[in-house]
């Protein structure tokens, strides 16, 4: 914890951090881009989950829906990583010494694993969740995916309310 505080102080003293802190439009702009990308990744994942529940695009094979929505998540995640990193550099203490931030990162890791697994499974064996016996497994995976993504968004908002004073 002490090392993180020290690191945060060092980061906050860099000239890049100083610029982000003092130019007032930078942080809201970064946050806007960040949220738009979150909206994109979150909705893409949820739409595939809804397809697994057969409430979205039932007339389209799961493989097609997966191929349209899951692969684009990865480049969007890179933009999220970039804007997220800049936000941390601008206000290191807000996240680096904040438990909620680490909860968000842990949930993000789970979401990445889930999404990658889902993408690989469906694209390798298109019928994987279509037959009745495997349907339950698919729905369980889709439920966890929706909950984890919602958890990421909740944690993201709560970072602002749990930062050290």
């Amino acid at each position, binding site marked *: 914890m002490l090392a993180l505080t020290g690191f945060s102080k060092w980061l906050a003293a860099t000239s890049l951090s100083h610029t982000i802190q003092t130019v*007032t439009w930078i*942080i*809201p*702009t970064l*946050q*806007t881009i960040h*949220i*738009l990308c*979150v*909206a*994109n*990744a*979150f*909705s*893409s994942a*949820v*739409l595939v989950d*809804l397809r697994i529940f057969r409430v*979205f*695009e039932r*007339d*389209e094979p799961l493989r*097609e829906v997966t191929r*349209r929505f899951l692969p684009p998540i990865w480049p969007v995640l890179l933009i999220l990583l970039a804007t997220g990193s800049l936000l941390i550099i601008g206000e290191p203490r807000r996240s680096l010494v904040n438990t909620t931030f680490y909860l968000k990162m842990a949930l993000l890791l789970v979401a990445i694993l889930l999404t990658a697994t889902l993408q690989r499974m469906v694209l390798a064996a298109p019928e994987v969740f279509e037959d009745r016996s495997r349907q339950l497994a698919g729905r369980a995976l889709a439920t966890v995916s929706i909950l984890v993504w*919602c958890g990421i*968004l*909740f944690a*993201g*908002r*709560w970072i*602002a*309310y749990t930062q050290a004073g």
Partner: protein
Amino acid sequence: MSYIQNLIAFFEDSSIADSIRENDTLFPTIESIHVVAICLVVGSILVLDLRLLGFASMNRPVGRLTRAILPVTWGAFAIAASSGFLLFISNATKYLANGYFDAKIVLICMAGLNMIVFHAVSTKDLPQWEKQKSPPLRARIAGALSILLWIAIVACGRWIGFTMQEL
């Protein structure tokens, strides 16, 4: 005018608004629900916008994609609007005095209007072009306008947080 002011005062003075103001976890919880719902609204409508622009889902007929996406969008919008209303009444006077809040409401109405106009103009001949990979110009304009409006709406939402005085 005074009728509207009375109505706003009625909501702002209600016990629900008071709880949201005073309770430490209620406001952030409703705000989180608002963010989740808005993300789903923006993300799902983007799917349709990109189709109208001819950038994605090109093998899906526009009519079918619309019927699949819009229930998700409207469901999420209902949650976003009601959670947004609760956040609004917790501090109605200050929100109304905030230019970004007013701009956000106007922009949401414009996004709705864009949708209504597109439907009115395009429903008739939709079957003729809905399978085209690149839809006609007016459909592409509607898609582009929708993307720009929703980006502006999200930006206003974020700017409200930076320009409101202490809640």
